């Protein structure tokens, strides 16, 4: 029988690189390697997850008992705003970008992404943007405090004259540029860089979901970018887009924001659905039940996801026709989601299951996400939504989707895929401690919030009277956060300790299905010693267990040209940062706009240097 060892004897490829990779810090600053950029994104995401988690912990301390005064007023609003902004844009999205960067090229048998330098540009623009977003604490000693969806006109100078809000639009603009560019890059990569034989229906489900979300990123970020540009202009130059005294309509921002905001929800959840779809079959030792249905339902969710944004606005008086239309499209999304859930159950049904930590997280994803999905479906009905809007019931709903769903999926992904990245296994005992602490803590925190919402507790209030009847649930919720924090710290410890010292993983520690497990852990710079030809949906499984479907192993060495390291991506990102700084200082420092002009000229110069640089 064929085995993974067949690939060890492949002759080493002949290597061309115009400039060799640099060493140390310079290597990380100039790298165009999708694997290194993936690690950078992942590390940033994990770091910001701790920051956002700390913000949540502080909020829960304030709300643990009635009438407390730890963090009140704008301080609490700042924590609310930055917890959500950080978790969405700086924690979950970069973790997804990290997995996408590291594994999409490996899963499709490619050497790198379609535009390696553009990929580095996306990373640096994201990184600088994340610094700008958080630097308001450093420069003006406060956080933006208008909520993560920053409803204008609340965010205009009339209501938020402080500069913290300016840092919000400045940071978000850079994140939007980064995501849009990365979206285009990965769409091209997945469509065009597949190894021979990898037809679309043989592309792994995780990569498919990444394709869907990259399309969503490329198409959903422009509306919010436009909305943010209006906001920036209103705040900086005195235009009147959101000025109600001049006839401005408060619904404008809401439409632009949620036209981005709802596809964004699917950007956060679809990759985790992809992870679960990859992990369940491996530990059930069988193919994913109805793989094509899972793929198509993901595509359908992405497509219809652009037509449901109005369900965030039922209370704004859009009128019965718009309400009915958005209610129907929203309810429609339950169908493809249900298709996925039943396919996962079908995969598990009657299978001989093993339960390493990755599988525990993947399995617990299904019921936890389903709870969030069902409470979400309730919001599809306008009359129900009018009752639940702005209550803790909504907070419970989206935390079940984003923590029980997206984050648990990502944790499953970390335990499953990290051995490929580090070459070392994570500790299973610590992993199981992490899993149970997190699962218990998460349910303790968010389940009582359903009751709080039904009992009328509004979201985003910084305290409540003792006789409101919300004391017990709030206390339980705060206790739960400590379990989640402990679990997350165990996870962080597990990753740090086992990054270099864990048990060796080998190429294929899980006896898995797809191409990324064919190469060494960690993979070499060029990913594969030979271009793997794909003959089925589960190329590596079939190589090992299905006679006649072995992956052809070449006898001659391949010639490979790999892209060279480059400083140019970071230059261009830095000049964008300079433009943004010039705009931020426009009303504070005379002639600050010259910084923006220098930035624009710098971009022209460095783009010329970029295109004339041999790759």
């Amino acid at each position, binding site marked *: 029988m064929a085995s993974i060892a067949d690939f060890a004897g492949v002759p080493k490829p002949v290597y061309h690189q115009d400039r060799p990779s640099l060493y140390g810090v310079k290597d990380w600053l100039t790298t165009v390697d999708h694997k290194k950029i993936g690690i950078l994104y992942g590390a940033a995401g994990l770091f910001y997850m701790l920051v956002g988690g700390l913000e949540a912990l502080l909020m829960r301390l304030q709300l643990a008992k009635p009438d407390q005064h730890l963090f009140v007023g704008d301080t609490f609003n700042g924590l609310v705003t930055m917890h959500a902004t950080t978790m969405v844009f700086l924690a979950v999205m970069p973790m997804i970008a990290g997995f996408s960067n590291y594994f999409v090229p490996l899963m499709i048998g490619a050497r790198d992404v379609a535009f390696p330098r553009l990929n580095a540009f996306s990373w640096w623009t994201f990184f600088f943007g994340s610094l700008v977003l958080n630097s308001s604490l450093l420069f003006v000693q406060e956080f933006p405090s208008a909520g993560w969806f920053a409803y204008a006109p609340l965010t205009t100078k009339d209501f938020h004259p402080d500069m913290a809000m300016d840092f919000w639009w400045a940071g978000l603009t850079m994140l939007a540029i980064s995501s849009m560019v990365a979206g285009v890059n990965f769409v091209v990569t997945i469509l065009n860089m597949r190894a021979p034989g990898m037809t679309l229906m043989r592309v792994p489900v995780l990569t498919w979901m990444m394709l869907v979300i990259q399309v969503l990123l490329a198409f959903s970020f422009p509306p919010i970018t436009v909305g943010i540009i209006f906001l920036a*202009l209103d705040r900086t130059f005195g235009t009147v*887009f959101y000025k109600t005294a001049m006839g401005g309509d408060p619904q404008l921002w809401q439409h632009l924001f949620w036209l981005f905001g709802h596809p964004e929800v699917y950007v956060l959840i679809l990759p985790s659905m992809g992870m679960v779809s990859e992990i369940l079959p491996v530990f059930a030792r069988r193919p994913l039940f109805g793989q094509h249905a899972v793929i198509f339902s993901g595509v359908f969710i992405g497509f219809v996801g652009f037509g449901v944004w109005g369900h965030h606005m039922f209370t704004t008086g859009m009128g019965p026709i718009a309400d009915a239309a958005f209610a129907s499209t929203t309810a429609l999304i339950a169908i493809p989601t249900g298709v996925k859930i039943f396919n996962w159950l079908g995969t598990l049904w009657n299978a001989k299951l093993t339960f390493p930590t990755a599988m525990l997280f993947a399995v617990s994803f299904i019921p936890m996400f389903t709870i969030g999905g069902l409470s979400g479906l309730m919001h599809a009905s306008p009359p129900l939504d009018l009752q639940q809007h702005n209550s803790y019931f909504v907070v419970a709903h989206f935390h079940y989707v984003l923590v029980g769903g997206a984050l648990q999926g990502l944790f499953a992904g970390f335990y499953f895929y990290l051995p490929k990245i580090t070459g070392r296994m994570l500790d299973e005992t610590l992993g199981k401690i992490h899993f149970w602490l997190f699962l218990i803590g998460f349910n303790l925190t968010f389940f009582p919030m359903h009751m709080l919402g039904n009992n009328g507790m509004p979201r985003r209030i910084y305290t409540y009277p003792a006789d409101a009847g919300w004391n017990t649930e709030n206390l339980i919720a705060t206790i739960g956060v400590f379990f989640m924090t402990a679990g997350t710290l165990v996870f962080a410890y597990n990753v740090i300790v086992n990054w270099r010292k864990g048990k060796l993983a080998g190429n294929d520690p899980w006896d898995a299905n797809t191409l990324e497990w064919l190469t060494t852990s960690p993979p070499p710079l060029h990913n594969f010693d030979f271009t793997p030809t794909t003959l089925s949906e589960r190329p590596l499984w079939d190589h090992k267990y299905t006679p006649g479907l072995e992956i052809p192993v070449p006898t001659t060495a391949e010639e490979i040209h790999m892209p060279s390291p480059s400083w140019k991506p970071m230059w261009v990102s830095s000049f964008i940062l300079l433009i943004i700084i010039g705009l931020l200082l426009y009303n504070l420092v005379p002639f600050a706009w010259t910084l923006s002009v220098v930035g624009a000229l710098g971009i022209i110069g460095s783009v010329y240097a970029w295109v004339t640089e041999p790759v």
Partner: protein
Amino acid sequence: MSAPTAELLEAAPDHGHHQTVENNFLGLPNIKLAMWAFLGSECMFFGSLIGTYFFYHDHSLGGPLPQDVFSLNITSISTFLLLTSSLTMALAVDSMKQNRFPPAVKYILTTAALGAAFVGFQIYEFSEFVLEKHLTPQTSLFGSTFFIMTGFHGAHVTVGVIWLLMMAALISKKKLVPGREATNVEVMGLYWHFVDIVWIVIFTFVYLLEFIK
């Protein structure tokens, strides 16, 4: 390779063994596919800008109004110049495909000149609005939405002009990757035509419709 293997492989184009990061599965160059994806994203960008303009149409709480400021004569001339630039852009792409580089450079420079002229007309239009007709981005919803929408279009034309000039320099100095010059110019052409089409939409719906009464 066994028989079923060969059959399974049929769906894939043949890459030979010289696979690099320049791989392409769809038989379409990466940059061309990327430009199409980017233009899709741009549709949403301009869609939001133009959508906002119409969302706020007739919502201004005071003049000047579109009919008071628009001058169809001047805008028609600048529109004509921009549309003509699409012709010269197409001629440039055609010359590149026939490997006739010197005429291609001339067409590219003509395209850049026509684009620059369009931008010049826009600067003239904007300054006339501000100085003589007292419409600024701060005046009213119409002022804000009009200046920012057309301003971003003008910025796209400006980026296009810079790109055209850079491309002319790169072709003249033979700095492009041999064999890929025509694709580079074609992709630039896609962008240029797109920006042109956006202007057709703006000119028709923002300017012309005001005068159909």
